[in-house]
């Protein structure tokens, strides 16, 4: 198989199959929801939709979103050749209906029709550290526009929400974002949060949190405690699936902290909808073979 064909299969599976950690979490939410409620109806529809998409090999959600590639490759890997193969895979996936035509010229409104254009898709390359196998680790996230639009960035202190420059202030900012996102981002959702950084890197790192499995634990004790607390508190707000009211508002919250300027204190929050499209592969060094599927 060529690198392009392997990336096409990565895109197909990302679009049509839910990652296990998220689907299990959604099924748990369904079991725990009050019976004969609109919230239960929403979660039953979500369950049926996950099954149908995988069976038919069609997109889970019609908004196949921003196409975000995260690539760890050993020294010597040709990034430009990788990008070319990925772009060809994206165009083919669009023609086959695994991806919606989702790249629009911001000035003319013209849809490119194949998901290619300035800024789309996006690539995040990093060099594998010492001790890594000579293999290419490719992770793909498809992030829909509805959930992207409810992302929020707070600059602390923020007197509107009484948030100071401390973890208690971060908690207020994150919970305000949950309140404001209700209904618009398809819940139950998952949050990726970055404390610190600048306006661009803060959002960038917040999205990278979505690469973490839902059931992992944060190695930093303060952040781990905050992650658990945010989920517990959000699930007491009664927002529920799709904002219909109900028990499960968040499935998870993943937080990182990076250094900031003395003058800046950003809390950047990305929201991922329940249709969490995330897949990964480990490729042989030449890109020709899928050694392993991730997630």
């Amino acid at each position: 198989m060529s690198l392009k064909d392997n990336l096409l299969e990565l895109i197909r599976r990302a679009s049509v199959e839910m990652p296990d950690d998220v689907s299990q979490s959604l099924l748990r939410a369904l079991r725990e929801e009050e019976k004969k409620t609109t919230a239960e109806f929403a979660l039953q529809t979500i369950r049926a939709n996950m099954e149908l998409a995988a069976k038919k090999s069609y997109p889970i959600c019609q908004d196949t979103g921003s196409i975000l590639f995260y690539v760890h490759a050993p020294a010597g890997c040709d990034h430009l050749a990788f990008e070319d193969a990925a772009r060809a895979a994206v165009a083919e996936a669009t023609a086959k209906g695994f991806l919606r035509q989702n790249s629009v010229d911001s000035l003319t409104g013209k849809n490119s029709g194949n998901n290619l254009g300035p800024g789309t898709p996006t690539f995040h390359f990093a060099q594998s550290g010492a001790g890594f196998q000579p293999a290419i680790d490719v992770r793909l996230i498809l992030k829909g526009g509805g959930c992207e639009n409810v992302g929020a960035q707070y600059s602390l202190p923020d007197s509107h929400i009484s948030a100071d420059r401390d973890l208690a202030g971060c908690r207020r900012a994150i919970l305000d974002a949950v309140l404001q996102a209700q209904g618009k981002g398809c819940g139950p959702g998952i949050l990726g949060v970055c404390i610190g950084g600048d306006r661009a890197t803060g959002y960038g790192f917040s999205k990278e949190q979505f690469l973490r499995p839902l059931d992992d634990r944060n190695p930093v004790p303060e952040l781990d405690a905050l992650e658990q607390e945010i989920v517990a508190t959000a699930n007491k707000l009664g927002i529920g699936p799709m904002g219909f009211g109900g028990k499960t508002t968040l499935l998870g919250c993943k937080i990182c902290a990076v250094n900031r300027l003395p003058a800046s204190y950003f809390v950047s929050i990305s929201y991922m909808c329940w249709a969490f499209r995330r897949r990964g592969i480990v490729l042989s060094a030449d890109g020709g073979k899928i050694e392993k599927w991730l997630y």
Partner: protein
Amino acid sequence: MELKTPIPEATIRSLKVGDLVEITGLLFTGRDAVHKFIHDGGTLPVDMRGAVLYHCGPVMLKEAGAWKCVAAGPTTSAREEPYQAGVIEKLGLRAVIGKGGMGDKTLEGCRKSGCVYLHAVGGAAQVLAERIKKVRNVHMLEQFGSPEAVWELEVEKFPCVVTMDSHGNSLHKDIFAKSKAALAELL
């Protein structure tokens, strides 16, 4: 309850927040570009009087000369809030389907014009595409591109929940107020 298009105003007025409904008949898709176009004075090449508008940008494939709907869940409706009430009145819509709910202006528009807001489950593109039996036509495809075009979809038992009725009630408004109060207690 099954609703067949065109839906009479009396039936729309009888609907209440929380009702589960299934639509059979014709849906027209229309989202950001369509709303702005109508707001700016544009006229669509199709009569939507009494129709149901669906906030949706589907995935469509052309197979053997015919359009096939591959995925078709709702998009976030809040973006159309500045335009929706005017569009309901101008086009004579009886129902709008979307997700996430809309604001006070649309709620008032529903009351005035005899319209309801129906919520389909967001992200459920396959469950909803299964209920689309035929793609009858498409308008404005060249101008707006596939996700923003006006697609005419024949549907059978398309499932939705009434979340904003024609009597001034909104589930979204209620849940927002309750969750805001709950958060204030927990902060």
